[in-house]
């Protein structure tokens, strides 16, 4: 199995080379993918009258938010929420639909299209992939995914369209994963399953289009939200800090999923599972970006990290989910042994959840931080902080879910002083959500 692990990260040989001639793909790419789906469905229909089997799942999320917080990403701020500046908001937070097409007994196409509040393209893809998961003889199971999908980091976001059954806001780690990470490529996984259902496996993937991953962690820092970036998505950069002066070539918004240098990245890891008892996952990710690369206003950010996740079923019907991440992101040409931006980042979270009455009660605590070692001290990217999130949700008739959630985030980030704000801030967010699942 170790041999397999070593061989795993097989980068696809022809990644898109999009150096200077990059054009906004938006609608074209989406349409192409959907057409491909349509074609594959046609082919399979011809083969077997019983396949494809088409199923739909979806989510509608209506939200009331009340915040006492600094401006967030949507307001080009350095606050810890996506939007902190407005105190009271009613809105359609998200509407998503997942199409699942079972092509045969072992393969399935999966695509999720989403609308989210102030998403840069109103309707866009968050995932689109072909999954292959056959029944393995004698306990060995080979599985794979091909397309655009979330790397297997979060242990909380297991619901329709990457929603979490525990909280509305994702943890700092999972919020960053949803914002800046997506596998564009292929993933293979080999598991050995015992008679009792225990699984032990290795997995690995080759990926592209993740070259700007790390930018938000360096320039804005960790944050709590539940916004998943989409295929053609862009994220707003903080204003009022040194970015435009020091990096005049940087575009006004970060293009989330773009290939800047034509170099594929990878991740590889191990997973163990005892059904209904525990799940363990560890992976190493390296986007292998060239930190000196720049294309159409987007820099390459060489981001690599370790991710650890554990989920355990404890006595008293309590579930524990803990995740940790530590890594580095580097950008800019070498000057001596330093780069323009070189930020180490880490975060860890602990979530406890249990049924309470007819609903589910969850509480999560997390700590996070970053530090830097680069030649631009005037671009200050260090921070540290901690956050509490408490959620109670009630599910009616399998479809309807009412959530009440409270989050409080304490953080210190010296760069805020350049915006005339205090380095230390406390952000508070109350949320009430009605979610419909179908």
């Amino acid at each position, binding site marked *: 199995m170790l041999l397999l692990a070593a061989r795993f990260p097989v980068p696809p040989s022809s990644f898109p080379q999009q150096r200077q001639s990059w054009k906004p793909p938006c609608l074209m790419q989406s349409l192409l993918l959907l057409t491909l789906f349509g074609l594959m469905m046609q082919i399979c229909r011809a083969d077997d009258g*019983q396949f494809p089997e088409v199923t739909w799942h979806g989510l509608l999320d209506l939200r009331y938010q009340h915040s006492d917080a600094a401006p967030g990403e949507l307001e080009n701020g350095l606050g810890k929420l996506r939007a902190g500046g407005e105190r009271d908001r009613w809105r359609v937070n998200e509407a998503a639909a997942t199409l699942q097409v*079972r092509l045969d*007994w072992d393969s399935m196409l999966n695509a999720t299209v989403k609308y989210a509040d102030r998403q840069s393209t109103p309707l866009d893809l968050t995932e689109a*992939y072909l999954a292959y998961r056959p029944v393995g003889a*004698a306990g060995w199971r080979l599985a794979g995914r091909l397309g655009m999908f979330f790397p297997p980091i979060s242990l909380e976001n*297991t619901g329709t369209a990457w929603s979490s059954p525990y909280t509305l806001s994702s943890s700092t780690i999972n919020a960053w994963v949803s914002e800046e990470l997506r596998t564009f490529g292929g993933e293979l996984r080999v598991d050995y399953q015992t*008679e009792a259902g225990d699984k032990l496996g290795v997995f690995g993937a080759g990926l592209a289009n993740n070259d700007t991953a790390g930018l938000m962690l360096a320039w804005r820092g960790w944050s709590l939200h539940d916004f998943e970036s989409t295929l053609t998505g862009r994220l707003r950069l903080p204003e009022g800090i040194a970015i435009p002066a020091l990096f005049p070539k940087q575009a006004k918004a970060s293009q989330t999923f773009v290939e800047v240098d034509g170099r594929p990245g990878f991740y590889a890891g191990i997973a163990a599972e005892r059904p209904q*008892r525990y799940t363990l996952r560890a992976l190493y990710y390296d986007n292998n970006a060239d930190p000196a690369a720049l294309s159409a206003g987007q820099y390459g950010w060489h981001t690599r990290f370790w991710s650890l996740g554990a989920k355990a079923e404890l006595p008293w019907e309590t579930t524990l989910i803990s995740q940790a991440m530590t890594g580095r992101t580097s950008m800019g040409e070498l000057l001596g042994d330093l780069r323009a931006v070189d930020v180490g980042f880490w975060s860890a979270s602990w979530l406890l959840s249990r049924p309470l009455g007819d609903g589910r009660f969850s509480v999560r605590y997390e700590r996070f931080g970053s530090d830097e070692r680069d030649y631009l001290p005037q671009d200050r990217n260090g921070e540290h902080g901690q956050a509490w999130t408490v959620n109670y949700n009630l599910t009616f008739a399998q479809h309807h879910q009412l959530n009440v959630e409270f989050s409080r985030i304490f953080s210190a980030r010296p760069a805020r002083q350049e915006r005339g704000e205090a380095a230390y801030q406390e952000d508070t967010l109350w949320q009430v959500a009605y979610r419909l699942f179908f």
Partner: protein
Amino acid sequence: MASRLPAVFLTAWAAVAPAAELAGKALAGGRPLADLVVAAQALDAAGRVKAPPAPAAMALDQKSREFVPHVLAVRSGTPVYFPNSDAIKHHVYSFSAAKRFEIKLYSGVPREPVRFDQPGIVALGCNIHDWMLGYVYVSDADYLAVSDAEGRWTLDLPEGRYRLSFWHPDAAEQTAEQIVSVPAGELAVTVELKARFPTGKPPASLQNQGYGDGF
């Protein structure tokens, strides 16, 4: 079509006229316990002679994305049909040493049953719906019963001495064997369950159905 199956398969059992009845109640933590397997092995020649000679075919259904029943007890050599009463497909498999198989279930009843020849416990899963979990208890014992939702079980057997063994999928420790002489009064069997066990039931919210993070 699936609903007609039990009537057909149970005919063979009715042909063997029972002389006595051994009944009992399964309990866990003071509450009735379903799915407890009770296997009776005859210790006298009388009991063995009247044991049902040929195993009849049985059925284990897939309904609302669950195995129904959750536990099926069969004598070695019994063919078991796996009908699919859902409108969606199931892909049933077992990695258990007593019987390895996989069966692709369209709607309706598959033409071929699965024959369970070897005694042992066969854990069933569905490749499409991970939470689906079921068991086939395959035994050489002469008489078998499974407790119902009220914890009740009944064995129709001739008078005589029997060795009773018990099995439950979620038992922390399986209940010890007992020797009983029939006729006997109602037997109470208490089982201590594991602190945490898989139920095999579909998730209570549609949020968790059909995604599971894709990995």
